[in-house]
């Protein structure tokens, strides 16, 4: 179980001895995130930001949402955003959106395949027994909802807006109740992902920003040892 995890104990306050012996404390360092998790995490982070920015650019062309198959200027909207339509941002917006989507999907498939094969999901997200730096239940629910709920829904509703993909897979229309419903669900899923992003970043800051960020870049996470 703990094979491969690196435990190093060091005297963190050794250089402060001249000031105060009380500053001397023991820390345990462990590898919190595996290399594949760290790499896919940051590729995903970049593509999600690109998707959000380009998605907003696309949205500006027609900030009205409908339910069902069709929807246009003269049909009633399910809801409408108080934004001034801007038709000039969707050219680059669409190209960036689809480039970022390709990167996010390929990256996500690698992450999910690895997570299943290595039993990463089972150990870290599904196992009832928390390990030494296990995730809390709300954290697990959030991560599982994002990875296996919101992201697949965002991808599939995005594909439902493609007239080429739906020619090959018309079942997508049945799944989401029409093209405009798919567009609306895509928008809602994107907003929930943004909500997750905000909470995720806030929690990262609140629970020790430097330590958390380091553990996602180099893998090393520092835990203060109990005084004995």
């Amino acid at each position, binding site marked *: 179980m703990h094979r491969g995890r690196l435990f190093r104990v060091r005297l963190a306050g050794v250089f402060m001895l001249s000031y105060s012996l009380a500053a001397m404390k023991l820390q345990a360092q462990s590898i919190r995130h*595996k290399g*594949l998790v760290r790499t896919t995490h940051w590729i995903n982070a970049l593509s999600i930001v690109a998707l959000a920015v380009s998605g907003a650019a*696309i*949205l500006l*062309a*027609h900030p*009205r949402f409908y339910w069902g*198959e*069709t*929807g*246009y*200027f*003269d*049909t009633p909207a399910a809801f409408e955003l108080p934004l001034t339509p801007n*038709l000039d941002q*969707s*050219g*680059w917006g*669409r*190209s*960036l959106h*689809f*480039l*970022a*989507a*390709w990167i996010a999907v*390929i990256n996500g498939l*690698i992450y999910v*395949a*690895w997570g299943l*094969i*290595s039993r990463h999901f089972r150990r870290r997200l599904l196992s009832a027994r928390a390990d030494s730096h296990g995730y809390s239940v709300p954290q697990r629910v959030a991560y599982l909802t994002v990875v296996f709920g919101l992201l697949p829904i965002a991808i599939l509703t995005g*594909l439902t*807006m*493609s*007239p*080429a*993909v*739906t*020619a*090959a897979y*018309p079942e997508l*229309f049945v799944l989401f109740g029409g*093209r*405009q419903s798919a*567009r609306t669900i895509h928008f809602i899923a994107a907003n929930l992902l943004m909500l997750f992003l905000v909470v995720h970043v806030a929690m990262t800051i609140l629970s020790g920003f430097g330590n958390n960020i380091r553990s996602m870049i180099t893998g090393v996470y520092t835990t203060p040892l109990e005084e004995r």
Partner: protein
Amino acid sequence: MSNLISRRKLLASLPAASGLLLTGSKDSLPPTYGSLLGLGDALTFASHRLLLRNQPLAREFGREMISKRFPAINTTNPASAQYQGLRAGRFTEWWLPIEGLVSNHLKLSLDDLKRFPSRTQVTQHSCEQGWSAIAEWTGVPLARVLQEAGMLPQARYVVFYAVDGWWDSLEMLDALHPQTLLAYGMNGRELPVPYGAPVRLRVERQLGYKNLKYVIRIEVTDRLDNIEDGTGAVGVAEGYSWYAGI
């Protein structure tokens, strides 16, 4: 240790998978994909060529689904004297040349087009802006006209020119698709002026902007880099992808 091996296997299979994607069909790259942003469009185009290789049809609806007020956008009544003259003559003086890599250069009148076997389809028009609407389109499959013109073997693209200065092009898979029409009828009537009279293109597996209105000339070609600004479509300079299957 097993983790390491499966990870290595996964990484090694990546180039193979993308290679298959890109070489799965011949001519599987769009004409312009040089930029970083174009990379995504190229992947989309290549994967859609694979996905659509058996030419599935876009979904068709019953007439009861036809939208009451189908939006008419961009040019809705070309101001040129040429067009207004044609319109005043009820398009009896309108001719559609089929040129380029064909053995018979054709010049078809509206009545000529109507003498071909027609196809009527009720389909959804999806605008890149986000809205969509359903209409019934009647016209001649482009493939039938190209067959009549006798396309040469090296033909790869079909270029369309419109009376309002717009132009666009299709690669053969979409050009020869059974639902790709030169449409002269809409919702059981003559195609109205705001929707592209007398003839517009219908490309049901691409977004609205590929469905060129007011078509006045068709050219079959093996390359796009020597046509107009070389980008394949009028919208590319504005940042809109040449391929619009998504």
